[in-house]
């Protein structure tokens, strides 16, 4: 394993866009070359070393053997691990928006919380978050009809709104609560929410959403039956019928939508 540490030299007010912090980019480069990688602090172009201290193994390795350790506050550093295909990124603290954009393989492990748009348009690989994640986990870009198409996202805390919007594949698991409209316009992905959710599966065409806590269910969902899954009794619904959807929604308890 080739380990490379990246540590911010200061706190950022203006967010930094650093899509080149990725095993695929780092792989063939020496530390000196990595230091010269271009990142953006607002409208200023910077060398990576201007903003971050880089250290670690100097010798280029195979991409799948690269481990990038992000130490310190990355909550305003965006697009880390964008389009990565292999290797591993570990964030010891929080990470900013768009981590793992379009990721196709490898792993991002976040010990803190993740910003919005985590794993946007992800195609493969795995993202884990010990803390919370923001809005639009695994979603698509504005106007697109496909978000995440493959891979796996696990959030041990809670997630924000629009979890897995336009999901076209892959699996998202949230151990805590999800916000409004998880799995909206789902087209075949799998979402499991450990806690509560508000209006899951709106306009879902296909796929499965499980809410192991309490859910407010849309009037356009049809109750089917109560089933037992992993020792939990879940109400099964079919929808979203506004669009002739054939998605499956399971919820442990249901908030009264009439109120």
């Amino acid at each position, binding site marked *: 394993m080739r380990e490379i540490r990246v540590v911010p030299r200061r706190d950022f007010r203006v*967010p930094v866009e650093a899509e080149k912090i990725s095993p695929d980019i780092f792989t063939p480069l020496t530390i000196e070359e990595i230091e010269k990688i271009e990142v953006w602090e607002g409208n200023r172009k910077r060398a990576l070393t201007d903003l971050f201290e880089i250290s670690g193994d100097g010798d280029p390795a195979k991409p799948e053997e690269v481990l990038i350790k992000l130490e310190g506050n990355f909550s305003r550093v965006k697009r880390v691990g964008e389009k990565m295909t292999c290797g591993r990124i570990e964030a010891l603290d929080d990470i900013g928006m768009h981590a793992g954009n379009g990721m196709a393989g490898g792993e991002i492990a976040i010990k803190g919380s993740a910003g919005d748009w985590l794993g946007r348009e992800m195609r493969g690989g795995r993202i884990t978050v010990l803390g919370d994640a923001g809005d639009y986990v695994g979603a698509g870009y*504005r106007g697109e009809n496909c978000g995440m198409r493959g891979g796996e996202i696990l959030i041990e805390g809670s997630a924000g709104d629009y979890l897995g919007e336009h999901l076209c594949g892959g699996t998202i698991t949230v151990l805590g609560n999800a916000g409004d409209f998880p799995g909206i316009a789902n087209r075949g992905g799998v979402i499991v929410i450990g806690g509560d959710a508000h209006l899951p599966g709106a306009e879902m065409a296909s796929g499965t959403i499980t809410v192991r806590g309490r859910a407010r269910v849309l009037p356009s969902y049809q109750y089917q039956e109560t089933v037992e899954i992993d020792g939990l009794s879940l109400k099964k619904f079919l929808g979203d019928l506004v669009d002739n959807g054939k998605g499956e929604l399971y919820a442990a308890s249901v908030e009264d939508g009439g109120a």
Partner: protein
Amino acid sequence: MAEDVLCPFCGCLCDDIKIEVEDDRIVGVKRACKLGSSKIRGHERTKAPMVRRDGELVETTYEEAYDRAAKILKEAKRPLLYGWCSTVCETHKKGILLAEEVGGVIDSTATVCHGPSIIGIEEKGLAGSTLGQIKNRADLIVFWGANPAEAHPRHSMRYSSNSSGMFTPEGRKGRKVIVVDVRETRTAKNADKFLLIRPGTDYEVISALRMIVAGKGDLIPEKVAGVAKSDLEEAAGMMKTARFGALLFGLGMTHSRGRYKNVDNALSLVADLNGFTKFVVMAMRGHYNVAGFGQVCAWETGFPMSVDFSRGAPYFNPGETAACDLLARRETDAMLVVAADPVSNFPRNTVEGMAEIPVIQIDPFPNPTTLLSDVVIPSAVCGVEAEGTAYRMDGLSLRMKKVVSSPYPTDEEIMQNILDRVRRLGDDN
């Protein structure tokens, strides 16, 4: 007497105003509503440019104000150029160019009003029409979360519920009006059918209506978000049997829980209804040219608002690049406010973000934003003292007139002056 003047107030952009002018001064306004008339007649103005010295705003020259503004913008790493709703498109063009030159983020007041409507349109498209189409054909008007009686006083008479046209000779008598709102507004009092819904339940109610329209009403519960199914069935029936229906929605939809998804679902409802009859949908835009900024920004950058030029190429992502996002997260380090008043209209905590950074204001009138500004540049009032293009809420563009002269420069001239100075600073570096 100036005839057929456009009103520089709301998105109705009424173009039939008569203004009496004596000695280059306005002495009378006819046909305008209370809102428009009040603006055209004028208010207290910011007399001269000001800059902040020792914590106080002090009067200065335009030259110094321009220099100071240019320097603030040029030095910033993530300047925010915000506002644009009460100025003409010619200003927007200059503003977008300025945002490009300083590598800033440009955003309009749409993101605190109908921004969610635009994001909804990005999901579903918009089945719209010009207002005259509604006037001439609509026999059903649905106001959803909109209260034109207070926000767009002449809308009903000129364009919607009370107007008359080719196929609607009876005006209000030949029409039905449905109002959906969380309170009984003045608009609701004039409705044939009023649906009182719980705040934040628009999405569910729309889904229920879509089910009924699709003939699946038997699958929905007896009560949806506090509304009886029978009421929903009656409303859906009115929609389906209309010859030409128009769904006109306001901030009730975009400012409530669900935000753009409410609009998204409403657009789908209208698309569904077109399988049975003719239906159009329109956002009741607030300021007279907030729609214009969206148009100009779209043709110049490809995106209608919240465009980030930090890296030289347009990047759009409201939620990340809208004015309130940047301020609430304290990500911007300078702000230019043109023809808007964010200090009044943004949440308090967001305004506190403005207090931490240099702020430049371009506006004819003093307002709370002035209190937090470091450079204040007074301008001519568009549509009264300056001409230019504005887009009505339905996307129709019209040319605003100059009725009286002004001692103040136009917004467009101010933008050009700042742009010139920014360019000169660039050359020095």
